[in-house]
């Protein structure tokens, strides 16, 4: 799920993995990407990492740690639950996160993964 102001409608699997790994940081029009995630041990985070990103939560954590503790990047912002995720995604232009299917709200956009 992304904020409605995000210019892109679809991205590749490699790109979505790079977005959540904070390796790419701008949308195709150059506007900044803000990433929101749930805690590492949240079942939805685990499901999303494995099925949509094809990587394990510990790989993501390792990728963030490598950047945070070498000064080359910042970790995504962690939100406590899906309500908070919805709120942050609606309020932050250029933001990206994920929600379970029954939580999808009309003011947010769904990004296709090719």
């Amino acid at each position, binding site marked *: 799920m992304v904020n409605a102001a995000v210019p*892109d409608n679809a*991205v*590749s*699997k*490699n*790109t979505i*993995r*790079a*977005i959540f790994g904070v*390796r*790419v*940081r*701008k*949308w*195709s029009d*150059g506007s*900044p990407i803000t990433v929101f995630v749930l*805690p*590492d*041990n949240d079942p939805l985070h685990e499901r999303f990492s494995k099925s949509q*990103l*094809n*990587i*394990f939560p*510990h*790989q993501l*954590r*390792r990728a*963030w*740690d*490598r950047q*945070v*503790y*070498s*000064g*080359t*990047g*910042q*970790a*995504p*912002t*962690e*939100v*406590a639950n899906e309500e*908070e995720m919805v709120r*942050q995604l609606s*309020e*932050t*232009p250029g933001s990206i996160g994920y929600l379970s299917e029954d939580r999808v709200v009309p003011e947010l956009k769904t990004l296709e993964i090719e």
Partner: protein
Amino acid sequence: MYCPASIDRPARIVQSPDTRARIRRADLRNAGKREDDARTMNTKKDNNRITPFISFLGMALILCIHAVPCRAELYPGLQIHGFLTQGITSTSDNDFFRDSDDTLSFHFTEIGVNASWSVRSDLQLAAQILSRRAGRGSDGAPDLDYGLLDYSPISDLNRRYGVRLGRIKHPLGLYNDTRDVAFTRPGILLPQSIYFDRLRDLLLSSDGVQVYGERITPLGSFTAQLQLGYPQVDKAIEYSFFGFDAPGKMDGNPVFFGRLLYDDPSGRWRLGFTHSGARFDYEATGNDFVSDGFVYLRQYILSAQMHTDDWTFSAEYLRQPTRFRDLGPFLPQRTFPLESYYIQGVYRFAPRWDLVLRYDAIFLDRNDQDGSETTSGPEASSFARDWTIGLGWQPKPNLLFRTEMHMVDGTAWLPAQDNAAPQDQERRWKLFMFQISYRF
């Protein structure tokens, strides 16, 4: 960042008046907390004027306490993180991290605090202070671990190209960038064959410039980093090369590090290649047994890592030819063809638990793996084969316990400063370690 940090994080741009009001309230709340934090720190600082190190420790602790529940983003774009690690070491023979032979050594402490500020989406400032106490080679004096400006002018969904200026960690192998952060290490000690403490100062970081590029393609993702800079080397570098402290002076030229990483489209494989080069000029004093000359060191490292549901397999292979030139009859003209490698499996057998298995080997001369032809010390000082088994338990995302045992044959990576002369070292020895680490 691993705790629900941003419940009251102020968003940068908001759309509705209702939201703006909510953000203002959040801002006020944060401002209040920031003042409280500042007051606590000031009081603590006044009580702790003993040494800069103690107040640094105190500050790290305050930050730790305040980090539960932590708010990583104190100010829009500003993040503060840190870690604290304490280890206990014991050996059956020889010494590791000071006196550990048949006794317990507590001389292994790592404390780090870092701040990063995302000024704009393409400009970031970051710095980390690190105190590392690890045997006689590292005394725990706080030092700037990295301090850099990162600018990435060319950036979109499939690429990011940029430049980093300042003190930058060397891109080397799978682990060097964060080698002092326990949470990023597989086990307590990194494989000593590749990440040897003996060359730590040279391998750690340099003051200079790094250009980098990330490219996301249908064939996978590529990361390239090229760095040129001056490393923080001191007299200890003579120990690393000569095995003793020579009377003259060793002058460093800029060192080069380059790394290419590839992540395959399945997300399971990572492959890497590192190349580095460093030349040190030796300047003899009046009555010196070493002549004016130089040491030229190159490294070639192949890295591979693979993930399955329960396992992470890693392997790295290093070739490191070190050339001695014109150093006089005592250090004759020659090339040391060092070879080393390790293979490692981390098995996550239960949630929050892992088992580490590793075989790690180093040969200072790859044509003389049993050391029988060595002229620079006992046979066992020219190689080391290390079988490691370790256990990790992470009861909380920010708390980690580890223990491990090394069964070592050879003394090639035994810290020279902690040990007696090589001929008095035991060839076969065991190393037991325990470690607790906290981060925020």
